[in-house]
C-alpha cells in the first residue's frame, strides 16, 4: 500500500517532467492568473489606506469675524468638532496667528503695523475613515452655519475629485474583482483541461489494465497541486518584489508618502482557492475521460 501511494505521488511529479511543454504552459498561465488577481487583492486591500493618506492632507481654514472674543471662538470650534465628517478642529487665537506668522515669515507684524491684523481662526481636519465618502459642500455649509464666520478656505475641487474617484473605484471594484476571478478560473480550468487532453492515451491505457478511479485520478490531482505550488513559489517573490519596488519608487521619486502593504492572509486564502480549483478541474477533466465509450 505504501509503495502504491509513493508510486502515485511520484507519478504526479513525473507527469510534470514527462510533459514539460504542457506543464510549462500551465505553470506560466497559472502564474499570470495568480499574479493578476493577487495584484487586484493588494490594490483592494490598500485603497482605504491610500484614501486615508489623502484625507489626512485635507485642511479647511475657518476665519472668524474680527470682533469675536476668544471665549465665543472656543465655543464655535467645539460646535465645529461635532459636525459629521470632522475629525479635529484647532482654534488659532490672534496671538497664536501672530507667532505662526513670525515663525513662517521671520517678521514681527505687530512691530511693523503697531497692531495685530490677523483674525481668530480654526484649522479643521476631516475624518479619514468615512466609508461613504466625504461630502465637502455639506461640511462647509454646516461649518458656516455655526455663525460669526468671515471666510472658509479649502481645496474644494481637489477633495471633490478624490472623493468622487474613490466612490467610483469602491463601487466598481467588486464587479472588477469578480470578473477577473471568473476569467482567471476559466483560464485555469482550460489550461488543466488542455494538459489532460494530451494524456488521454494514458488514462485509457490505465482504464484497460483495470486501474481504479483513485489510481487513475490521484496522479493528476497531485500534478495539479504541484503545479499550483510551483506557481505560488514563482509568483510570491514576484509579488513581494512588485510591492517593494512600487514602495521604493513612491518613496524616492514622489511626494506621496503612503506605502502599500502586502496582506499575506488574503493572499494565502486566494492561493488555497486556486489550489482547490486546480485540483477540482483536474479531477473533473480526468473523470470525463473515464466514461465507457460506445
Amino acid at each position: 500500500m505504501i509503495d502504491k501511494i509513493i508510486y502515485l505521488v511520484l507519478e504526479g511529479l513525473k507527469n510534470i517532467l514527462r510533459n514539460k511543454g504542457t506543464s510549462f504552459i500551465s505553470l506560466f498561465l497559472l502564474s499570470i492568473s495568480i499574479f493578476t488577481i493577487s495584484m487586484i487583492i493588494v490594490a483592494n486591500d490598500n485603497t482605504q489606506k491610500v484614501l486615508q493618506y489623502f484625507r489626512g492632507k485635507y485642511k479647511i481654514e475657518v476665519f472668524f469675524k474680527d470682533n469675536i472674543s476668544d471665549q465665543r471662538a472656543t465655543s464655535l470650534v467645539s460646535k465645529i468638532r461635532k459636525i459629521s465628517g470632522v475629525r479635529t478642529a484647532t482654534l488659532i487665537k490672534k496671538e497664536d496667528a501672530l507667532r505662526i506668522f513670525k515663525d513662517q515669515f521671520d517678521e514681527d507684524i505687530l512691530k511693523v503695523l503697531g497692531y495685530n491684523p490677523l483674525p481668530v481662526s480654526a484649522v479643521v481636519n476631516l475624518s479619514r475613515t468615512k466609508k461613504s465618502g466625504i461630502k465637502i459642500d455639506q461640511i462647509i455649509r454646516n461649518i458656516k452655519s455655526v455663525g460669526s464666520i468671515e471666510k472658509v478656505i479649502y481645496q474644494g475641487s481637489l477633495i471633490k475629485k478624490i472623493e468622487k474617484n474613490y466612490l467610483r473605484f469602491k463601487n466598481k471594484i467588486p464587479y472588477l474583482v469578480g470578473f477577473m476571478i471568473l476569467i482567471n478560473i476559466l483560464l485555469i480550468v482550460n489550461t488543466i483541461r488542455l494538459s489532460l487532453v494530451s494524456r488521454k492515451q494514458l488514462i485509457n491505457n490505465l482504464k484497460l489494465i483495470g486501474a481504479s478511479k483513485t489510481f487513475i485520478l490521484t496522479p493528476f490531482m497531485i500534478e495539479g497541486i504541484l503545479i499550483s505550488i510551483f506557481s505560488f513559489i514563482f509568483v510570491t517573490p514576484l509579488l513581494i518584489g512588485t510591492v517593494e519596488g512600487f514602495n521604493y519608487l513612491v518613496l524616492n521619486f514622489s511626494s506621496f508618502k503612503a506605502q502599500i502593504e502586502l496582506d499575506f492572509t488574503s493572499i494565502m486564502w486566494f492561493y488555497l482557492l486556486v489550489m482547490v480549483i486546480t485540483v477540482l478541474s483536474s479531477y473533473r477533466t480526468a473523470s470525463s475521460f473515464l466514461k465507457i465509450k460506445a
Partner: protein
Amino acid sequence: MIEFKDISFSYKKGKGVTNLNLKLGDGEFNFLIGPTGSGKTTLMRLIYFDLVPDSGTLIVNGFKSKNLSFSKTSKVRKEIGMVFQDYKLLNDRNVYDNISLPLYVLGYPKNQIYDRVDESLELVGLQNKKHHFPDELSGGEQQRASLARAIIKEPSLILADEPTGNLDPVASFELVRLLETINETGTTILMATHNYSLIKGRGLPIYEIKDGTLKQR
C-alpha cells in the same frame, strides 16, 4: 469463464456483431479468425467491457456486462491480460515502466515488481531492452513488450487482438509458441488473427467471425 448469449452490438455509424453465441472454458486456447473489419476487435472489446452489448447476456469471470460499475469493470480487467495490435504502450515511459504498471495497479510491493518485470522480460526475450522507450524498439519488440505487460500479472485470461499483425512470419510463429507455453500453465487464451496459415494444424478450436456473425470452424 466467458459466455456470449445472443449478443448484439452496433456502433453509431453501423456494423458491429449480431447474435453471438460463444462459450469459452477455463484453460482453453481458442483462435478467432476473420478478415479485417469482420468484428474480431469488437468481440474482444465486449469481453473486456470496453463496449456494452445492445442486447443479450455476456458473462466474463462471473460478471455480467449489464450495468457494471467502474469498480467492477476494473475488477474484471485486473484478471485479463490484453495484447493489442497497436501495442498501446505509453511512449513517454520506458519498457520497465510500461510493464510494471499493471503490478502497481494491483498493489504489488516494489521489490517483487523488480523481480517480476525481469522474469517477464526474459520470457519475451527483451531483458536487454528494459530501459528503452517504445519508439526505440522494432514493431516485433513492441509487440513482445505488450505481451510482457499482459502476462506479468499472471492473468486468468489473455486476449490477444491481432498480436502478429505487425510481425514477420518467424516472429509470428514464435509469439504463438510463447502463448501456447503460457496456456500450458492454465491461462485461458483467445487470440484473434486474420492469418489462417499461422494457426491451422495446431489442433486448437478456431472460431470464424464474418460480417459480425460467428461460427466454429
